[in-house]
C-alpha cells in the first residue's frame, strides 16, 4: 500500500516522493508541494480532515482526499 500524507501522525515529518494524480491542484504544487520537499503534519481538525501541514516552510491546510494522493517517505 502506498504511504501518503493522509497516513502521517501529528508531528511526523516526511519527504514527498511522487505526485502523479491529476486531482492535485496546480496551486498546491506552486505553494511548494513538490517531490523532494519536506512535509510535516501539524494539526488535524476532528475526523482527520482537513490536515494542517508545513510543506517546504509554507503553512497550509488541505483535505484528506487530496492528502491521500501525495506519496511520501516518512523520515
Amino acid at each position, binding site marked *: 500500500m502506498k504511504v501518503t500524507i493522509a497516513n502521517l501522525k501529528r508531528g511526523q515529518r516526511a519527504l514527498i516522493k511522487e*505526485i502523479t494524480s*491529476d*486531482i492535485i*491542484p*496546480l*496551486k*498546491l*504544487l*506552486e*505553494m*511548494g508541494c*513538490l*517531490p523532494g*520537499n519536506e512535509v510535516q503534519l*501539524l*494539526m488535524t*481538525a*476532528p*475526523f482527520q*480532515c*482537513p490536515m*494542517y501541514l508545513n510543506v*517546504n*516552510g*509554507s*503553512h*497550509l*491546510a*488541505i*483535505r484528506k*482526499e*487530496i492528502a491521500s494522493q501525495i506519496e511520501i517517505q516518512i523520515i
Partner: protein
Amino acid sequence: MAKQIKVSLIGNPNTGKTSVFNLLTGLNQQVGNYPGITVEKKEGICKLARGVKAHILDLPGTYSLNASSLDENVVIELLLNKKDKDFPDVAVVVSDVENLKRNLLLFTQIKDLEIPTILVINMADRMKRKGISLNIPLLERELKTKIVLVSARKREGIEELKSLISTYTLLPTTPCVNALSFDDDYFERLQKVFPNQSLYKLWLVITQDVNFRKVDKKPVGITPDFQIKTESELKRYQQKEAIKRYQFINTVLKEGMVVDEKAATGLRSKLDRILTHKFWGYFIFFTILLLIFQAIYDWSSYPMDLIDEGFAWLSETIKVSLPSGPFIDLITDGIIPGLGGIVIFIPQIAFLFLFISILEESGYMSRVVFLMDRVMRRFGLSGKSVVPLISGTACAIPAVMATRNIENWKERLITILVVPFTTCSARLPVYLIIISLVIPEEKVLWFFSYQSIALMLLYFIGFGAAIGSAWILDKILKIKGKTYFVVEMPGYKIPLFKNVFINVVEKTKAFVFGAGKIILAISIVLWVLASYGPTDNFNNAEQIIGEQLTDASQEELERKIASYKLEHSFIGHAGKAIEPIVAPLGYDWKIGIGIISSFAAREVFVGTLATIYSVGSEEEETIKNRMAGEVNPILGGPLFNLASGISLLLFYAFAMQCMSTLAIVKRETNSWKWPILQFFVMTGMAYIIALFAYQLLK
C-alpha cells in the same frame, strides 16, 4: 499635467500587500470594480519627490501567474496586455520575509515578463524574532532587482520604496531564471515562430487557454501546433516549470538567507495548539461570535439612540422655524427621516467590519476555515463558505462577492444561494425595533438580556436556514467539479490599526453611498405616495371629518383628519389591497405597506413606518413609542404583541427582500435563473413560517 508613474502592487495573499498599499496612498484611494466582473479594484495616488505622482494599483493577491480564479485572472490579463491603460511602468512584488521562498515563485514569473520590478520584503521587523538574516546585495545580484526591506508596522522602508519607484527606468528588466528549460525542442520551435515575443509570455498564453479561459489579446498566429494536447500533459509541464523555479530559488536562498531555528520563537504553534484545538478551538470561536453579537446589539445602541434623537430634533426644529408648505413638508417628513434611516446603520456596520477586519488581519480567519471545513462540507459547503456566511451578517452583497475564492463551482453556487438567509445588518433595525416592543427587557445570566438572547436566536435561525437549505441544494443540484481546497495558514499578527480603520471606513462608505441612495429615494417616493391621494376623499378630508365629528377637540380632530388622509392616500390604497393577504400573519395595512416597500431593501421598513406615522402625527415622538401605541384594527389590543411581533421577525428572517442582492447574484452566477429562484423560494418560506407562528401563538 505631469505624467504619472503607473505602479502595480503584486503579491501572494497574506504578505501585507494591502498594508504597503495603505502606507503609500493613505486615504487617497478608491475602491471600485473591474468592468464586467465583480473583482475589487483598488487604486490610489502616491506623492513622490519633486512633484511626481505615482498611480498605485493594488492587484488581487495571487500565488502565481497561472490563474485559477477570476481574481487571479485579472492580474494576468493586465500583465499580458501592454495596451491596457493600467499596464505598469514598474511592478512592485510584495513578499513576506517568513515565506520568502514561496513568494519568490511569483517574483521569478513577473521577472520573466521583462517589466521593471522592485522586490519588497515586508514584515522585516519580524526577522530578528524568527532568527532570519538576509544578504541583500547577493539577493539583488542573483534576482536581478532592487530590494527594499519594509516594515509596514513600523513604517520603515516606505521612503526608500518611493525613491526606487521614481527612478524605475534604472531597474534591470532581464529575467533571472530560465524556467522553460525542460523541453528545449518544444520551446525552441515556439520561439522560432515568434522571434519578437518573450518566450514566457507565449507560454502563459498557451497555458491560460487550456487552464482557465481564453486570453483576450493573444499574438496573432498561435496555431494549434503549439497547443499542448491534454490537460495532464500541460500540468506536467507546469509542474516541471515550478520545480525549475524552486531549484533556482533554493540555490539563491541557500546563500542569501540564513535561518537560525534556535532564535525563532514558536508563537504560531503555541497559539495553533489552542485555537485549532478540537474543543477549545470551537469554544473560542463561538465565544468570539457571541461577543460580536453583543457589540452589535448593545454597544452600538448608544450612538444609534443619539442619531435617532438628533434627526427627530432636526426635523422638529425646521418645522417650527420655517413656514409650512409642501416643500418644507418634503424635507421634514420625507428627506430627513429617510437620511436618518441610513445614518442609523453606521454604528452597527462599523462595529461588524471592525471585528471582521481584526479577525482577518490577525490570521485567525484561516483557523476558522480550518475548524469549520469538515462541518460545512457535510452541507455541501466549504470551510471557505464560513467567511461569506459571517460577512453575510453585515451585508449579503460583499458576502456574495466574497465567495469568489471558493474554487469549486458547486460549493460556490450553494454558498451564493444561501448567504441571503444570514442575518444581514439591514434586518437589524427591523429586528431591534420589534424585539424592543415585544420582548421583555429583564436580564438573565449576569448581563445577557432576554432581548439580546432573542437577537442571537434570530441569528441562529438565519444561519440554520442557510445551512439547511445548503444541505437540500447539495442533494438536488447535479453539478460535478473537482474539490480544490488549499488554505494558507498565515502567521499570527497584531492587526495594524491603519488597515482596520481604512477597511471600516471603506465598507461604511460603500453602504452609505451604495445602498443609502436606494433607501433615500424610496423614502421620498413613499412620502409622496403617502401625502397625495387619488380620490376626492383624500382632498376633502378636513370637510368630511369636520362634519362627522362636530364636538371633538381641536387635537383629536387633527389626528382623525391625518389618519383619514393616510388611509385614502395612494399608499393607503396599496396597503388595503394586500391586507387580506397579510392579515393571517397578524399584520395591518400599515405593516403591509412596510412589507411592500421593503422588497426593495429591508431596512426601508422602519423608515416607511417612520414616514407613515410622522405623516399621521404632528407630535414629537420617536418611531418606537408610536408603534407601541398602535392598535390592532380587528382584534383590539396592541398591534405589536408577542404573536404578531414574532411572526414579523420570522417573516423578515426568511424573506428575500433586497433588490441589490438579487442583482449581485445575477452578476456572479451570470444567469437570472438563480436570483429568481432565490426570490420565490425564500419569500414563500417566509410567508408559510410566519403564518404558522402567528396562528400558533395568537
